[in-house]
């Protein structure tokens, strides 16, 4: 499976004219354009048929899961580190110049269906039911999506909007296993971790601190929180 998926990734080096075409179709609400583009490409390259239906985020997970088993050197590799996928760079580049609804389209395009649905809900709630609340910050949302795309192995978190309009992503597995990150527009983050520690009287170790969107994953990893944040 690994070889097939690898070919699929290499074959995603399509030119940006095509990519831009289906992205614009996606942004304008024609959500099937991306799948059609993939299907058309698959017809040209039969070796990709097996994985053409796999959405990018899922595909990233498959690659990460496959690498440790398939490496001939037998080296233990970090399954959580972001991989240099062409689609990731492409999507991240687009994040620089788009608006909230387009960010949601990007999230859907990248395979984060639940996240995109929730963000759509939040926009709707804020417009209709919470007009006096701080609106969702576009910059914070971009920071969040950038984090999610770079760390595709994570399951999609629950999302709330803070009083500052920032996105707060919550990974909650049990009462003792919680990790949340509040993404600030500047790229700073605030995070809180609950991790099990049986030596404590209540069995929970709590850590809260400030970091950056690019470093917070390492903080989570060092605290052992990624054990339940990963799919």
């Amino acid at each position, binding site marked *: 499976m690994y070889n097939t998926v690898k070919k699929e990734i290499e074959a995603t080096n399509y030119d940006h004219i095509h990519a831009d075409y289906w992205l614009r179709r996606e942004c304008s609400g024609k959500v099937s354009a991306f799948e059609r583009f993939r299907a058309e490409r698959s017809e040209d390259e039969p070796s990709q048929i097996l994985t053409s239906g796999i959405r990018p985020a899922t595909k990233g997970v498959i690659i990460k899961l496959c690498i440790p088993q398939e490496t001939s050197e037998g080296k233990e590799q970090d399954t959580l580190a972001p991989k240099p996928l062409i689609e990731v760079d492409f999507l991240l580049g687009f994040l620089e110049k788009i608006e909230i609804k387009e960010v949601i389209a990007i999230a859907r395009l990248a395979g984060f269906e639940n996240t995109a649905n929730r963000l759509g809900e939040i926009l709707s709630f804020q417009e209709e039911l919470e007009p*006096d609340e701080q609106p969702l910050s576009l910059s914070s949302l971009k920071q969040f999506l950038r984090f999610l795309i770079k760390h595709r192995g994570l399951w999609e978190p629950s999302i*709330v909007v803070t*009083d500052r309009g920032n996105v707060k992503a919550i990974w909650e597995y049990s009462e003792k296993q919680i990790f949340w990150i509040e993404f600030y527009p500047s790229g700073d983050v605030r995070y809180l971790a609950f991790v099990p520690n049986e030596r404590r009287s209540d069995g929970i170790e709590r850590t809260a601190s400030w970091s950056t969107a690019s470093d917070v994953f390492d903080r989570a990893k060092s605290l052992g929180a990624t054990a339940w944040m990963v799919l």
Partner: protein
Amino acid sequence: VTPQPLPDEHHIARYVGASKIYPSFDGKRRVDSERFLPRADYPPGAGPEEFVSVDWLEHFQGISRRQQLDQIHAALQRRGITVSRKGGFVVVTEIMRQPWLPQLKNGFGTAVREDIPKKFPFL
């Protein structure tokens, strides 16, 4: 009016909008404790919120919890607040008073409402 502390066995409730509620691992809807801290900028552009606005359930005597919340629901609507079924009321219970949440103690101010005339420092 001199603020009076509420008895420990009494409860307060706060309406939380749908964008602040998330589904928890056990299927329940949850909000984080920051909903009980003064907001950093509220109303937007007006600077830090002066106090946390909450409602006192036991102000309505002799009725069930559901009916108390219905009364508060009606009071919120009279204040011009849009209350949605997708949002919800958070009722503060003992767990909020645990010592590892000291920010809650420091964060509480007073709540003043004309139709539910209670001012109190919480905790």
